[in-house]
């Protein structure tokens, strides 16, 4: 049976290290598929103007294609070139919950993420996406620093 690993990218350089680590794991496992995930941070409970609402569908498409082009596709191409079985996904929502949900849907054996390079006040109070993932995920999480 193919072992699935979910790799969460945040568009930063550190993501490359997560991909490298996953590649190494994949080569050890053998029959393995990497699912590269990028989550566009979004909340259904935010407040928007009527004009933003009107444009929302168009913006969403743009956000998805931009994330695919800039982050997910290059990573998937790199993995495929290295002979690793991989595919990419872009979703909207809360980063930690979406990555957990994908891992569950796919029956993944592990989640691999990089340590978020962003800090700041909000993260200190509510925790970063990475720490939320580590605390709440139902599968093992590897944090690459």
């Amino acid at each position, binding site marked *: 049976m193919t072992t699935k690993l979910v790799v969460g990218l945040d568009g930063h350089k550190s993501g490359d290290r997560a991909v490298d680590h996953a590649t190494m794991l994949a080569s050890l496992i053998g029959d393995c598929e990497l699912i590269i995930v990028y989550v566009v941070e979004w909340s259904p409970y935010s*407040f928007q103007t009527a004009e933003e609402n009107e444009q929302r569908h168009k913006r969403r498409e743009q956000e998805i294609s931009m994330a695919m082009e800039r982050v997910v596709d290059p990573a998937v191409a790199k993995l495929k070139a290295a002979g690793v079985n991989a595919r990419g996904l872009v979703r909207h929502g809360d980063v930690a919950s979406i990555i957990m949900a994908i891992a569950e849907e796919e029956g993944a054996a592990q989640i691999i993420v990089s340590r978020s390079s962003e800090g700041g006040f909000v993260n200190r109070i509510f925790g970063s996406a990475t720490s939320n993932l580590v605390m709440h995920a139902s599968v093992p999480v590897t944090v690459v620093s």
Partner: protein
Amino acid sequence: MNFFKTSMLSAFATATLPASVFAQEAMTLDQKVNETFAAITGPFVSFIFAPIPGTAFPWIVMWLVIAATVFTLYFGFVQFRFFKHSISLVKGDYADPNDAGEVSHFQALATALSGTVGLGNIAGVAVAVGIGGPGATFWMILAGLLGMASKFTECTLGVKYRNEYPDGTVSGGPMYYISKGFSELGLPGGKILAVLFSIFCILGALGGGNMFQANQAHAQIAGITGDYPGWITGIVFAAVVYAVIIGGVKSIARVTEKVVPFMGILYVGAALIILVINYDMIGWAFGQIFAGAFTGLGVAGGMVGALIQGFKRAAFSNEAGVGSAAIAHSAVRTKEPITEGFVSLLEPLIDTVVICTMTALVIIITGQLINDPETGLYVLDGSRIATVDGNTGVALTSAAFGASISWFPYVLAIAVILFAFSTMISWSYYGLKAWTYLFGEGKNSELIFKLIFCVFIVIGAAASLGPVIDFSDAAIFAMAVVNILALYFLMKLVKAELESYSERLRAGQIKKFKH
């Protein structure tokens, strides 16, 4: 011009703009703007507020209430039967996770609410209670509850018949559902009604959605800083609105979006605190509301006076039947247009039944309205009820809150200005949609409307309240004349949607998603 309007205007004007102001400003720019404006808009205003022959009851109020009652009965009290389901939809229980990133039901509701929650809830209610007495509150709540069905009807149609463009943007609202719906049913005149609605919508956007807001924001600022010419406030407001709608300065709009809901919560929170402090008076206040609703408790026009005030202010505040909300709600991404109808029916509930009632209760409980203890009737000052400091309008609400929380009038002043601003931004969008329906979408056409909108902010702030509130009410109600007429023809389309959806919901085909 009927009695309640004249009395309301004089009452409102004396409170916000003292006589000395008029004297000082004689022959000033403000005065000239005011006179010209009143002369131009007069006939239109008189027609909209004409009383039903032989009564003092304006036909337009009857028109709105009858419509809300008809929709309530026709859809079998949809606002109560589907209330729980509406809450579920707003919470996102039925939102497909694959649609994440699209406009949610919550967002569409919040956007529409930021256009309706505003001065109507603060100033409008004070006018209603100040003239119609506590009894006006009862009729206001009733109108709010009935209005939920009007909102449901128009917003379902707004989503069902919106235009979706190849680039993914959408445009919706009464002008679209009137023209498309009528042609689908093979009815003539859809295009004419749609054009007529668009014209009134532009006037409504410039009136209630703009001039009234600018005017009251100026009254608030002048109340704190002392009197100064209105056009100065107008130019400042116009510059900020210009920066947002033409300059594309998103940061201002973004700040407002976040602050306005917070202000709304703060307002209701403060009202609740005042109610808790005076908990022993709540029973008495409701007693006054019920007694006043059926006897008037001495107010001008008695029970009918209370009823007119309540109905009229409810309609102006929640805009049910006006058609504006249908424009705001139409951007939601859903496979079932009727779900947006269910969500939208919460709007009059939050706006009128909750927020407006809070304002009214605070005014009543803090004893702002002078009551004769011997007769139990309210003491009249002209045609309005005498108040503790002679306040009406925003000033009355402010005094009521200030009676319990001394610093709250300052918060209220900021809230009024922010509400005015957010309502202006919302209405600039509604007006723009009507404008582009008439003149086509395009950068230049849009720019012309936006510039006109900014100019009217200056006029609104400079003119005195009388002609402004007249025109604002009239323009917004004129939208309701066309919209409701069309809804009577189109409501069977909504009924078909409702029956199909209820059937599938019962059969378990409409599924909740795990989140």
